[in-house]
């Protein structure tokens, strides 16, 4: 994202003023490492809890949850926000609206459709957090008021983004009070709008967005953890997508397993109650590879895993996720938060 790299002169000046508090990644990195060493709560990378339905999640407005589900979100990691305050959300709405209006007047590419009134709305997503110490998640929406139908005035949502932190208290511990740590940012809408709004956040709160790619290694973890989730009923098959680097023609392989059978395979592999271990993830994937090899004599391990999709959620290596099951919303976000924090390091 070019916009994020090209900081304006203002933000550069501010960065230098901030030196005393926290700026460069190196001190943060050190503190994070220290925090990790000290903390026993933080999951060690080779062992993670199977997602459970969170108590806090009960607080979430069901309408808002429904809005977050079944949409494809592009995920980013985000460094802590400087001097962000939940009591100023109304001001932020006003300022960001004005910023977008100004950019539009400059004739820059703001994808807001026709000449409608643009409104920006900030709102909190109560309950989207892992512990009480996680900062509240919040949602930003760009809406356009349609002028054509005044009787049924209906806002059209042009772009949505949300910021959250689920079980990320370790990051919060490493920074001073002026910072709010919401390391996971998810956007849905035109990419040009994402970079425009990202630019505003970067200038206003001195933070930095980076696209969060999901490696094949992490995709395997997701597949295992999501297959491990207990479901009342399955809505989708458990599906893997591999891309084969063969020339001159590319080859894609999709491997879908009946969700009940995938669960049976997982249960047969799984030994540690309540937890998923690296050995189990490897064994689960190796079983799938070996079943595939028995039929097709192709080594999937020599190809590239690009997407996994289950009844809980789906994720693409490009950093796109879709959450399907509201029960495990928090569980999915917890892992994504972990990946985002790992990237900020």
């Amino acid at each position, binding site marked *: 994202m070019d916009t994020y790299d090209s900081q304006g002169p203002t933000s550069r000046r501010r960065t230098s003023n901030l030196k005393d508090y926290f700026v460069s990644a190196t001190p943060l990195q050190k503190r994070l490492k220290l925090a990790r060493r000290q903390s026993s709560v933080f999951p060690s990378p080779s062992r993670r809890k199977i997602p459970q339905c969170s108590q806090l999640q009960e607080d979430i407005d069901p309408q808002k949850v429904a809005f977050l589900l079944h949409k494809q979100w592009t995920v980013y990691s985000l460094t802590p926000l400087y001097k962000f305050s939940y009591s100023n959300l109304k001001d932020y709405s006003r300022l960001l609206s004005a910023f977008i209006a100004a950019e539009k007047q400059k004739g820059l590419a703001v994808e807001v459709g026709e000449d409608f009134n643009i409104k920006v709305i900030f709102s909190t997503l109560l309950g989207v957090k892992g512990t009480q110490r996680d900062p509240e998640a919040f949602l930003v929406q760009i809406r356009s008021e349609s002028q054509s139908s005044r009787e049924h005035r209906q806002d059209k949502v042009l772009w949505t983004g949300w910021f959250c932190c689920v079980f990320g208290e370790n990051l919060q511990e490493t920074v001073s009070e002026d910072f709010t740590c919401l390391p996971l940012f998810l956007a849905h809408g035109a990419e040009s709008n994402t970079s425009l709004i990202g630019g505003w956040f970067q200038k206003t709160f001195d933070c930095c967005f980076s696209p969060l790619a999901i490696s094949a290694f992490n995709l395997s973890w997701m597949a295992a953890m999501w297959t491990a989730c207990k479901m009342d009923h399955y809505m989708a098959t458990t599906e893997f997508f591999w891309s084969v680097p063969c*020339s001159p023609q590319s080859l894609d392989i999709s491997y879908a*397993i009946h969700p009940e059978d995938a669960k049976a395979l997982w249960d047969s592999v799984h030994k540690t109650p309540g937890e998923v271990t690296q050995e189990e993830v490897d064994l689960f994937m190796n079983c799938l590879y070996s079943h595939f090899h028995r039929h*097709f004599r*192709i080594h999937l391990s020599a190809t590239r895993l690009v997407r996994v999709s289950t009844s809980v959620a789906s994720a693409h290596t490009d950093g796109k996720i879709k959450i399907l099951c509201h029960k495990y919303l928090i569980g999915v976000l917890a892992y994504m938060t972990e990946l985002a924090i790992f990237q900020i390091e």
Partner: protein
Amino acid sequence: MDENVAEFLRRIILKIPLCEMKTILEAWDFLSEDQLQSINLKQRKEFLAQEVILLCEDKCASLDDMALLDLMYTQFHRHQKLWNVFQMSKEPGGNDVDLFDMEQFQSSFKRILQRALKNVTVSFRVYEKNSVWIRVAWGTQYSQPNQYKPTFVVYYPQTPYVFISSCYLKSTVPLLHQALKVASKHHQMAQLDLRSRHLDSLTAIVFNEYDQTFENYNSTASWREGSLGLKTDLDSKIIHENTEEKVRIHRATQEAFGAYPQPQLEFAQYKLETKFKSDVGGGILADRKEPLRCLVKFSSPHLLEALKSLAPAGIADTPLSPLLTCIPSKKMNYFKIRDK
């Protein structure tokens, strides 16, 4: 000219790419040479369409003429359709020496559809002498045919094979099959588990025409000597082993796929209902009687060439699974696999 006919023509012209406009209009063979020369091909398509509409109005063009133009367009853009393959058969003991009469086939086909639906547009074009292209726009007893969602059929007379574009109106399928069977004097019609956008590759597969260049098979020897290009200063034993292995893979790949260019398919699908068996981890799912239900799809712009390259690239074992190599010979790209 009817307003609907003009609109139909306008939409066909708009979807023809400018670089093909001349070729397709010529192939249509409706406008005269002079009229074709007079069309300005360097203007915006919207105006060009208007110009063609005026020329056609002068010639009192009918809906059938436009349907033929649509058929021409589809012949040029056959890869935009997904084609299904059907195989017809005759009952044993029938009088099997039937001489095919194209006119009789066409009139009988058309009559069956018209009798059932009343409103239907049927167009034919004999193509390269050995196939007939048919376009059917479907209506009902009470409504005019919808010209924008036609079905296309390609029939090879005196063979049992028919290729039909995927049809959005499922209710018309039995009638279409009936008309084809009666007109071509067959009794049964069965769908093959073979589908592709590449109609030419489908015909090559069903008529076994893909291996015509099979003769240059002795290329293994020349390959062994020339194209490896290994440097002679490497350890000669390693070279020898490497060469032996590569030659073995190359030979096995050629035995499975032949030395000719593969017919072009975009996908193959396998429904697996086989019991999980694995030497990994020991005893996983060993007590489970039910099979593991999987659906595996391979997709590629050129599937068979991609599969052919797997073993040489070290991604698959040699020889490759017969499940993958049997696609052209079995004339199938949809499979259901169960334990024996």
